[in-house]
């Protein structure tokens, strides 16, 4: 029973981790809480549904298409709503992010209606037994897809030139630009990657729960953000760790009978962790100079 909850938790946690990566990368570079990120995830899920229902594509094509669309959307979002505010206060950028989030939610609601839309079955519901644990094919695909995407991200950030530029920019924004790094390009690229990962998360959740709706990004975005902070915001391994930790904790909490308190579990954990480790599990301590 416990092992079963771990598998379910890992599945949920992998999706939280995919969304959390976008938050953490953006925060690492421009210290902005991108509140519209949950909406990108929601739009990714809708693109996935449309690819399947209207164009009749399979899982693979749908997820790639959703990632492409959201990449463009993420870059556009940054251009329109965040770039003009880069030199202003953080609260101003935050309000702009909230405005963008309200805009995207309502745009989708106008287009598709507020009702949940069913996600057609694209993966058969085969069940595998490993010992006493049941794993569905959908869960395996979610775990495998997340693992592949995170491996690609790790490769890009560590070994590709633009990934190195991202790391440099997150360490010291001004010095990085003095070293000839085109900061605008790096930020656009960060938004593109983060949005693509969120879109993949959206499609995976759609397949897992068989339904998508215009407000699905709100809670998922908030929890993924919690995951990013929990792991130490700005840290890529931290986001993955935080996401998985949160997913497992939430699943176990629900199994233990706290399902009505489901949404409070993530926040309680976050608060407890932050009180003991104010910058998250893998976050670097903030040093302040007078």
């Amino acid at each position, binding site marked *: 029973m416990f092992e079963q909850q771990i598998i379910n938790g890992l599945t949920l946690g992998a999706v939280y981790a995919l969304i959390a990566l976008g938050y953490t990368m953006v925060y690492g570079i421009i*210290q902005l*809480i991108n509140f519209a990120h949950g909406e990108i995830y929601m739009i990714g899920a809708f693109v996935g549904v449309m690819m399947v229902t209207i164009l009749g594509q399979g899982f693979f094509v749908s997820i790639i298409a959703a990632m492409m669309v959201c990449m463009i959307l993420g870059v556009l979002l940054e251009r*329109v*709503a965040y770039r*003009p*505010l880069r030199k*202003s*206060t*953080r*609260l*101003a*950028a*935050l*309000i*702009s992010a*909230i*405005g*963008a*989030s*309200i*805009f*995207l*939610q*309502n*745009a989708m609601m*106008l287009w598709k209606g507020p009702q949940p839309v069913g996600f057609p079955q694209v993966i058969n519901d085969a069940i595998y037994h490993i010992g006493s644990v049941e794993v569905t094919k959908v869960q395996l695909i979610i775990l495998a897809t997340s693992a592949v995407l995170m491996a690609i991200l790790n490769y890009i950030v560590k070994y590709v030139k633009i990934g190195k530029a991202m790391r440099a920019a997150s360490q010291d924004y001004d010095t990085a630009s003095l070293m000839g790094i085109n900061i605008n390009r790096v930020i656009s690229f960060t938004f593109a990657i983060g949005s693509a990962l969120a879109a993949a998360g959206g499609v995976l959740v759609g397949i897992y729960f068989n339904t998508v709706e215009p407000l699905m990004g*709100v809670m998922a975005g*908030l929890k993924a*953000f*919690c995951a990013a*902070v929990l792991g130490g*915001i700005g840290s890529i391994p931290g986001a993955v760790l935080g996401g998985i930790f949160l997913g497992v904790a939430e699943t176990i909490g629900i199994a233990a009978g706290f399902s*009505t*308190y489901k*949404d*409070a579990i993530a*926040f*309680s954990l*976050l*608060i407890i962790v*932050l*009180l003991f480790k*104010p*910058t998250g599990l893998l976050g670097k301590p903030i040093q*302040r100079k*007078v």
Partner: protein
Amino acid sequence: MSAFLESILDPYYIQVLTLLGVYIIAALGLNLITGVTGMFSFGHAAYFAVGAYGAAILTVKYQFPFYGALLAGGIMAALAAVIIGFPALRLTGDYLGIVTLGFGEIIRVVFLNLDITGGALGLAGIAKESSIVLVYTLVLVTIYVMYALQNSRFGRALVAIREDDIAAEAMGINISAYKIKAFAIGCFFAGVAGALYAHLLLFLNPTDFGFAKSFEFLCFVVLGGLGSIPGVILGTSVLTLAPEFLRSLSDYRMLIYGALMVLMMIFRPNGLLGGVDLQRLVFKNKYKSQAGRSTAAGG
């Protein structure tokens, strides 16, 4: 006075204007926390909810007099703020914002699960007590208190903390004590506003007090101009009345509301009245003549 206003104004407008007054009180409370002291609070709706539920439960279930419940609502919110503030206010910046957001959501979920609050069904049967005159009287009181606070030793200490907390501490300001006091006072006003809200809308549901509401309060404050009392009043008025004016656009209302928020921030990143010193605008001539006199005396 109330009867007179009701005879000349549509009841719907009275309701909207009264609600605006309630929001102004809550937003001024948040302004003291975020605008004056510089502490991010993304959970203001939770204290608003504590006041609303606290007061409504007292009047509905324990037949408390309304004014007593109003004060009790404020005090309960302030107490909640102190309890939450003690651990949370050690954090700063975005982390504090996130923790307050988390506490806000936890309070909402708790209200959703308690029996005394009516859970997801909501709390009904609240008597209508918040008249437009009462609400605006309290708005005036709040404005007065905020001005008095900001221009006192206490208020100046808060501004010092906002500008540079290390320097403020070096100057002998007990940062944690001041932060908690400011947080409690700000939340007290949220609680009073919540109590008024409960006795205006007559029905409470935990879903109305989610983080969307907290961000709404934050938008009131930031859009108007952080730290500026006239700015906060203007920001609250614009954002509360805008959806009413946009009502003719029906379905596109919230879409435009979101776009407006982005545009207003892009064109006025410091808020509508941010960086505008109203006192100086109004008393411009007085300052000028004084300045003229002093140079004349000097020369």
